[in-house]
C-alpha cells in the first residue's frame, strides 16, 4: 500500500463517517420531540454534510482519478464505504439518536483536535473548520445525554438502554490497522488507539453526570472502517441516498 493509497482510505473514513451520520440525523427532519431539536438536528446534519464535502473532495483529489465528492458519495457500493458501524446504526428513539451522536462527537472532537497538527496542511485546515462545529455538537449532545439520563425514570431507562445497545460499537473507533500506521508515520493523522484514554475520560465524566452505567464489556463490533463487513442497515441507507444518481446516470442536478 502506497502512502497515497493509505491517505485515500483515511480520508474516506473521515468523510464516510460524516456522510452516513449526517444522513441518519437528517432523517429526523420534522419529527423531533420539540422545535428546538428539529433546528439543532438539521444544523448538525448540515455541518456533517459540509464536512463530507471537504473530506471526500480531498479524497477524490488524492485518489487522482478525477472523482468528485459527489461521485464518491453517490456511486460507491456498500463494500467501498469506510465509516465505522456506529454511525450507520438506525436512529431508534430520540435517546438512541442522541447517545449515538454523543459517543461519536466525543471521538470526533478529540480526533479533529489532533488533526489540527497534521503535517498535511489541507487536513489541518479541514480539521480546524470542522473542529469548531464539532465542539458545539459535543456540547449539545453531551448536555442532552446528561439531561435525559438524569431526568425522569423513563428517560433514564431509555438512555441506559441506548448506551447498552450502542456501546459495542464504540471500540471500532480505536482499532488501528496498516492504514493508520502509515498515516501516523507520515504525521498526517494520529494512531486511533492513542485517542482512547482521552475518550474514556471525557465519556466517563459525562455519563457519570448522566447517572448512566458504562457496560462492563469492551467487546467491539468491527468491519466498517475497513469495509470488511458493514451492518445490514447500510445498504438500505444507500438505496435512498444514491437513488437519483443511480437512476439517472450522467444528469447534473
Amino acid at each position, binding site marked *: 500500500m502506497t502512502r497515497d493509497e493509505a491517505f485515500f482510505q483515511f480520508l474516506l473514513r473521515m468523510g464516510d463517517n460524516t456522510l452516513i451520520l449526517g444522513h441518519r440525523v437528517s432523517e429526523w427532519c*420534522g419529527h423531533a420531540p*420539540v422545535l428546538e431539536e428539529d433546528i439543532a438536528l438539521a444544523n448538525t*446534519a448540515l455541518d456533517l454534510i459540509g464536512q463530507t464535502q471537504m473530506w*471526500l473532495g480531498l479524497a477524490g483529489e488524492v485518489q487522482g482519478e478525477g472523482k468528485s465528492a459527489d461521485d464518491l458519495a453517490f456511486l460507491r457500493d456498500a463494500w467501498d464505504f469506510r465509516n465505522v458501524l456506529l454511525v450507520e446504526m438506525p436512529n431508534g428513539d430520540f*435517546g438512541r439518536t442522541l447517545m449515538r451522536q454523543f459517543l461519536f462527537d466525543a471521538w470526533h472532537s478529540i480526533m479533529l483536535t489532533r488533526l489540527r497538527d497534521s503535517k498535511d496542511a489541507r487536513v489541518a485546515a479541514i480539521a480546524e473548520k470542522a473542529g469548531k462545529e464539532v465542539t458545539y455538537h459535543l456540547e449539545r449532545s453531551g448536555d442532552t445525554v446528561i*439531561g435525559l439520563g438524569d*431526568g*425522569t425514570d423513563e428517560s433514564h431507562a431509555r438512555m441506559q438502554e441506548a448506551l447498552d445497545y450502542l456501546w459495542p460499537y464504540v471500540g471500532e473507533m480505536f482499532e488501528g490497522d496498516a492504514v493508520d500506521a502509515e498515516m501516523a508515520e507520515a504525521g498526517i493523522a494520529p494512531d486511533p488507539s492513542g485517542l482512547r484514554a482521552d475518550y474514556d475520560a471525557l465519556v466517563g465524566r459525562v455519563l457519570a453526570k448522566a447517572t448512566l452505567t458504562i457496560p462492563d464489556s469492551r467487546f467491539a463490533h468491527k468491519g466498517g472502517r475497513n469495509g470488511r463487513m458493514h451492518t445490514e442497515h447500510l445498504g438500505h441507507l444507500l438505496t*435512498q441516498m444514491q437513488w437519483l444518481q443511480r437512476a439517472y446516470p450522467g*444528469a447534473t442536478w
Partner: protein
Amino acid sequence: MYAQMIKSEATKDDPEKLVAFQARIDADEKIEPKDWMPEGYRKTLIRQIGQHAHSEIVGQLPEGNWITRAPTLERKAILLAKVQDEAGHGLYLYCAAETLGVSRDELTEMLLDGRMKYSSIFNYPTLNWADIGAVGWLVDGAAIMNQVPLQRTSFGPYSRAMIRICKEESFHQRQGYDAIRKMAEGTPEQKKMAQDALNRFWYPSLMMFGPSDKDSVHSEQSMAWKIKINTNDELRQKFVDQTVPQAEYLGLTIPDPDLKWNEESGHYDFSEPDWSEFFDVIKGNGPCNVDRLAARNKAWDDGKWVRDGLLAHAQKRKAAKVAAE
C-alpha cells in the same frame, strides 16, 4: 358590511378606546404587546400568526421528504439549511404569538387536534426531485408575496418577525428556482420532472393567497387593522405577473390554456384555481392532510418522554442550586 363587522367583533370593547386604537393604527404606530388592543384584534392575530407558525412547522414535512434523497451533497446541504430556516421561522412566530398571551404548547395542541389550521399547500405531496425546486420557486415565492407587505403590519412583534423571515425567504426562492432551472435545462427525464412539478404546484400555489376577497369574511376588518395589507386578488395577480416570465425563461408551460397577456390591463389574464378543491383540502380531504397531522402527532407523542425528562432535569438542577445557596 365594514361597520357592521367592526361592531360584531368589538361589542365588548370600550368605544372610546377603539377609536383611539384605530387612530394609532391609521398613524402607522406599532402596537406592542402591553398596549391596549381590541379582543378581536388579539384573536385575529393569534389565529393568523399561529396558523403561519404551524405552516412553517408542517412545511418541514414535504421538503424533509427529499433530504435523504437529494441528488448531490450541495443540494442536500441547501435543502437542510432551508428546512432549518423554516423551523426557525416557526420559532420566531410562536414567540410573536406568545406575546399575545397564548403559549406555544397551547398553539401546538390546537394544531394537533385540528382546531387550528396550517397552509393547505403543505397537504400536497412532493413526488419527484423537481418538486423541491417548485416548492422553493412557487410556494416560497407566493409566501414572500404575502409576507413582504406584512413587514409593515401594525403589531410590532409580528412585524419584526416578518422582517427577519423575509430576509431568509428570498434565498429560499432563489435556490428553488435554481434547482428547477437545472432540471429544465437537463435531460429529457429531468425536464419531464420539472414540468410535472409545475403542473401539480401551479394551482395550489395560486390558492395560497386565499379565495377572492369578495368571499373572504375577515378581509375588511383585518385591512383596517393593518394585519392584512393587500387584498388576496391583488397579491395573486402580482404573483402570476412575476411567475409567468420566469416559467417562459425555463421553457416550461404553465398548465393554464387561458393564460395570456392583457395589453389593456397590463397584467396576465389567468384561470382561477378550482375553489371546491381548496375547500375540500381545508376540510381535511387533501392528498396528505391525514398523514401530515399524523406525523406531527407522532412526533409530539413520541417526544413526550424527552420533554418530560429534560424538564425534570432542569428542575433538579434548579432545586440543587437553591439548596446550595
